[in-house]
């Protein structure tokens, strides 16, 4: 069925455009080689299918309610076209107009990018997941309905997509089948960026039609701006958690440390992904232990939004991106810190340090940097002693796309691991050519209906295979292994992957951040810091 799908078919009236056959997915290595038996995507119920749009592939990321009347359907298409025009206007989209035009107008349709896409390859080459599919779809709609003479030249240019409910609603869902990892852009000789086009499609739906996955918008950026964090954590709850972490550190290490909060004039404002406090409190704890040992002048913020580095706007909405970035900068300004350091969170790195760089002006233009070179300096300065025996287990490094391919932070984390982990080994490929964990662009936190199954079975499949391949000589459960993922979203995705494939039981592969490994090897600590307990 998949081989018969073309771009034109997107508007076709049918129950479901493609069927995902788990038996046809990219095979996994031993002991997971029984493809099709390991992977499953729970089918949606008939009631769900009747109520929400899921006719692309039977998976639901957004959950757009189906129209109740012809009038609603027409209004939906009218709003889409209105948003499409705004996407190509200077005032409304100065933020990405030039990159969008350069990517949309000059694709040679050579399909070279397809092989670089982990979603397309892992899915067994489902046509709709091809990086060029959704770009070509947007291109054809734009050329026919927005460009001058578009309708006259439509046959000649092959712009044959029918603009109806199916087309627009499936396009919205399709925008959430790409992790924005931009491997496709890396191999394009013309510099065409299908990841960017996907990003712009998401923006159109969010900024014009108010359509976005609720985990990103309602429970994401809106909640963060209202309550203080996308996790729902209020400033009071944050302070309680910090107190809890201080107690945990004392209980675990015998050290009584005080984590600085709202310290005026500190050198550094450290902002973690708030998910760390709830899911992996050992990560902020390790930062606190290390910064204290290194004698840094630093602080956390308890201001609303100031204790949560996440900025989901970077994936789907420029306005929300700007609001959160400016809020972070204002808090740093009020604290009179010299710089903002982003903790182990990839998208927060990219959002704060590069993408929002051209939003912050004047007093808000406060230097922002990654925690990785700072950790490197602490490790290599020579003031701290490390016991390498504590880290003497196989360790590999997952490169978060946002930090590495999209920001060029490649070497500090590797230098640290080479120094403190005697059995460090690289994945292949790694560095700038790494594969996404499969949870990028918001996928790791999106939990609508059967989307988590899709994420584990398809978008994370190549990462799963990479991890297995890296540890293939020690894959049996007798040897404890560690995947170092210095990014909260990647950790969340790897946790889900490992649960989905029962990796802990079958292969005892653990995962965690970078700073935990550093602290684990600190000689000054009476016992190792990492707690090898699956959660």
């Amino acid at each position, binding site marked *: 069925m998949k081989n018969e799908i073309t771009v034109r078919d997107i508007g076709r009236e049918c129950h479901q455009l493609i069927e995902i056959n788990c038996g046809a997915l990219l095979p996994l290595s031993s002991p997971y080689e029984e493809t099709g038996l390991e992977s499953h995507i729970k089918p949606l119920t008939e009631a769900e299918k009747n109520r929400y749009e899921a006719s692309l592939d039977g998976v639901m990321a957004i959950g757009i309610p189906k129209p109740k009347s012809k009038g609603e359907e027409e209004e939906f298409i009218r709003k889409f076209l209105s948003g499409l025009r705004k996407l190509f206007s200077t005032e409304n989209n100065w933020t990405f107009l030039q990159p969008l035009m350069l990517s949309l107008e*000059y694709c040679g349709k050579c399909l070279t990018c397809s092989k670089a896409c982990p979603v397309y390859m892992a899915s067994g080459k489902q046509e709709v997941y091809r990086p060029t599919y959704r770009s070509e779809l947007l291109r054809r709609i734009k050329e026919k309905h927005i460009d001058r003479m578009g309708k006259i030249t439509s046959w000649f*240019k*092959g*712009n044959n997509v029918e603009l109806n409910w199916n087309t627009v609603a499936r396009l919205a869902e399709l925008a959430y089948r790409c992790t924005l990892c931009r491997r496709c852009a890396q191999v394009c000789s013309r510099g065409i960026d299908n990841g960017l086009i996907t990003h712009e499609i998401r923006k159109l739906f969010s900024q014009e039609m108010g359509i976005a996955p609720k985990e990103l918008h309602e429970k994401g950026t809106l909640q963060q*701006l209202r309550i203080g964090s996308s996790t729902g954590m209020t400033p009071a709850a944050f302070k309680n958690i910090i107190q809890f972490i201080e107690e945990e550190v004392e209980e675990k290490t015998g050290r009584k440390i005080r984590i600085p909060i709202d310290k005026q004039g500190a050198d550094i404002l450290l902002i973690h992904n708030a998910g760390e406090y709830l899911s992996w409190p050992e990560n902020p704890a390790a930062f606190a232990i290390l910064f204290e040992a290194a004698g840094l002048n630093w602080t956390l913020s308890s201001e609303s939004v100031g204790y949560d580095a996440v900025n989901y706007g970077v994936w789907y909405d420029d306005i929300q991106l700007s609001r959160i970035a400016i809020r972070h900068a204002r808090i740093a300004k009020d604290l009179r810190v010299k710089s903002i350091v982003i903790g182990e969170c990839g998208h927060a790195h990219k959002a704060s340090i590069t993408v929002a760089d051209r939003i912050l002006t004047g007093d808000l233009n406060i230097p922002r*940097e990654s925690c990785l070179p700072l950790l490197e300096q602490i490790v290599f300065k020579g003031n701290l002693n490390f016991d390498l025996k504590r880290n003497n287990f196989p360790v590999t490094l997952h490169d978060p796309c946002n930090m590495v391919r999209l920001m060029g932070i490649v070497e500090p984390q590797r230098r640290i691991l080479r120094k403190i982990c005697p059995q460090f080994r690289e994945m292949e490929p790694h560095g700038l050519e790494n594969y996404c964990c499969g949870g990028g662009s918001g996928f790791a936190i999106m939990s609508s209906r059967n989307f988590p199954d899709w994420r584990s079975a398809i978008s994370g499949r190549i990462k799963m295979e990479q991890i297995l391949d890296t540890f293939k000589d020690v894959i049996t459960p007798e040897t404890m292994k560690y995947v170092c993922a210095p990014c909260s979203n990647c950790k969340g995705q790897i946790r889900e992957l490992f649960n989905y494939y029962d990796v802990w039981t079958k292969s005892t592969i653990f995962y965690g951040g970078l700073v935990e490994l550093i602290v684990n090897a600190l000689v000054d600590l009476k016992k190792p810091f990492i707690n090898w307990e699956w959660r």
Partner: protein
Amino acid sequence: MSIILAILTYVAYAFIIIMYGRKAIKYAKMPLHLRWDLYPVIHKNRRNHGGSHYDDLEWWKKPRRRRFIESILFILKDNFYLGEYFHQNRGYWFVLFPWHVGFILIITLHVLCFFAALTMVFGLPVSAESPNIFGRVFYYSVLITGVGSFLTGSFGSIGMIIKRLTNRDLRAYASPMNYFNYLFLLALFLSGFCTWYFFDPTFSGYMQFWKGLITLSPINVELASAIHIVLFALVLVYLPFTRSMHYITRFFAFLWVNWDDKPNLKGSEIEKKVQRCLNQPLSWSAPHIRSGQKWADLAIEMNFPSSVETKQ
């Protein structure tokens, strides 16, 4: 006929220059955009691992080196060699490369013809027996470039058609325009080949035509040459309506987007541009955006409506 050919050629050249110029200006005048870096950034390639200035602690205090010329040379080299295709998609490169070579050589042929004609205007003969070195160099350059263009271009055009038709995936993404482009260029290359092979084996007639264009005294040419001249002029007029400008826009895509890692430092020109952009009003109409407000005002607003249509 000679006057018509001359006018057509003048108009075609003027048209493509104006149209390409307009497009380039359109891109250049687009507003500053947000950063969207993609690594490796070639001018940072001194680091083997492809890292950026963010590898450094307190990066904003460190000097940043932009190797602009190195970046340009990298793109230029890839314009001719198509290296990414060679490494990632060898089968496609096998036909795409000769097609591109044919195209590049035919443009080079016309540039050479212009200078050869100029040489002739100054009274120096252009031929194999020319007493002047320039005359001999132009003669052989035109001959080799012309024949090379016709052969590689024809091979590439036919190869592209076959590749598109026989590969299911490529065929699915092809439009009638793609096939028209291949056939149009094939006609151009074949007409050039026939003219050279049957009527003008030394390109002397073609160079004389160019001399006539320079001296504003159009001369008559063989019918076959005339057909080739007309086809070439039509190709020039047609090109701005195709994606052919990717030879130029890929410079923009890399230098202005993927490799644009210039930070927005306090008091910089970038900061001034950002402030101008933030003062523009926008009209997006989702519930969480107040249409008509300026970007700057919207971005600091904390009390905005939020109802969305996607409640499950």
